[in-house]
């Protein structure tokens, strides 16, 4: 089984590759115990609630899940993801299987904050988009968006864990020129 425990990825030792890989790293502090946050993240099905661009996540077995993500121009991008490292209550690392259209891997760590300050959640996600026209579109999606997506996903994670719900301002509004037209 592949594992990256021997060479932990940290932002400090990651170099942007000429092949177009890109990574995003970000941290957020959540006022819940590490174990609880780990348990939520360990079930890929749960992550669907946090992720805007994910259509579906199917759990295949204890370590494998199948991901379907909204791609450019209505095309879905799919891959199997494999948990390659699992330290209960502390760290989960994953990577896409070898045949994935968009090679990607990442990890999330749960670290105790200073006393009384909750759990620090650190995440790093790395993408490697293919060539070609579709590749460029995917690169656009995966290389520009990950920052935004990751930021929002971690915020939603914190909201859900701390408040029990994902914050929304959905509500009434008047007719404005920015209003989306109903099809």
């Amino acid at each position, binding site marked *: 089984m592949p594992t990256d425990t021997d060479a932990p990825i940290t932002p400090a030792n990651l170099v942007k590759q000429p092949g177009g890989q890109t990574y995003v790293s970000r941290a957020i*502090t959540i*006022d819940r115990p590490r174990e609880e946050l780990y348990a939520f993240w360990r079930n890929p099905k749960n992550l669907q609630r946090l992720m*805007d661009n994910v259509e579906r996540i199917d759990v295949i077995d204890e370590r494998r899940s199948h991901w379907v993500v909204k791609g450019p121009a209505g095309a879905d991008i799919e891959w199997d993801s494999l948990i390659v490292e699992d330290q209960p209550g502390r760290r989960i690392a994953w990577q896409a299987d070898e045949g994935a259209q968009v090679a990607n891997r990442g990890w999330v760590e749960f670290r105790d904050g200073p006393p009384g*300050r*909750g759990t620090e959640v650190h995440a790093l996600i790395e993408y490697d988009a293919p060539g070609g026209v579709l590749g460029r579109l995917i690169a656009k999606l995966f290389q520009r968006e990950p920052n*935004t997506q990751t*930021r*929002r*996903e971690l*915020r*939603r994670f*914190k*909201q859900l864990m*701390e*408040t*029990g*719900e*994902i*914050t*929304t*301002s*959905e*509500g*009434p*509004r*008047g*007719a*404005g*020129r*920015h*209003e989306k037209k109903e099809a």
Partner: protein
Amino acid sequence: MRALTWHGKHDVRVETVDDPKIVNPRDLILKVTATAICGSDLHIYDSFIPSMMAGDVLGHEFMGEVVEVGPGLRGEGDNAPLRVGDRVVVPFNIACGACRPCKTGQFSGCDNSNPADKGDISEVAYGHAVSGIFGYSHMTGGYAGGQAEYVRVPYGDVGPVKVPDGLTDEQVLFLSDIFPTGWMAAENCGIEPGDTVAVWGCGPVGQFAIRSALLQGAAKVIAIDHHANRLALAKAAGAEVLNYHEVKVREALMELTGGRGPDSCIDAVGMEAHGFSPDNIADAAKAAVRLATDRTHALREVIMACRKGGHVSVPGVYGGITDKFPVGAFMEKGLTMKTGQTHTQKYMKQLLEMIEAGQIDPTFVISHRLPLEEAAEGYRLFKENQDEVTKVVLRP
């Protein structure tokens, strides 16, 4: 339902929009019985607040009756969840009650009340995502406000406070914002016996800051404005008053304090300072072409006037950037500055008890009463006649 919506600079309209619905488990829906136009709504009316979208429902000072509750409201015993029929007043800012800022009483720093996508704007502008506010642009969440017949209140188990039957809507409505805001402004002065507190701006927040400073033990309060009616209201509360059209403010303050300067100075003016001083005219010109956004004349004067080692308290709203900040005076005189959106939830119950006990009657600030249908006229009146208009209360 009917609601007041924003469509552009000096363009607000009462129109028919969809009724709000329960979306999240801890939501409740309020039937609004009274709502008010805030001085900070005028910043939106004047297009000084970025990230507004045409059609946004305004209003962050409101109260009413609970007509629907979500299935997941938290609390038990004395903190049992609200029920349909309860009469409540709602804080203008939204707080989850579960994050560390909320748990430590810093409700306006709530980490969770701004939706994940909307938080991006302030993270770029301010370095951190700010918390949610009703009816106050998409930077603060894009929530529909309370100048409407109904409003959705997220985290209905944290903010809204039940109102005793014996008190009228008008007596408690200002617990939503301006009374706690004035109270916190005075608290941020760290008032000690014998202190003199100077208050720039005798609008509604300034009026409550004046009264709060006196209630918190200030020996003397000096109020500064140029509107005769507003100065008269300040005088009625026991303040000495200065009209900045008639005197040089810093010199007058020095005389009134025996050459010491006020111990604490409150900027209850904020980003749209009036006046014809050279720095303010330069600010206005830059703001008009968006080279800078905030006109900070009042804040500069506050820093120049405050005594050495004194406290500067800033409840006035700022949103952008400024220049010519007198950083030398600020540092060399060893001033302490405290500011921020109000931790409304922290103060509401305490101030409600003071209203019940007759220590203060907040209705003094109301000058106009209009039906919600005439809200646009209320904005126009407030904007064009700030001498006569101190607070407009709207009834749906």
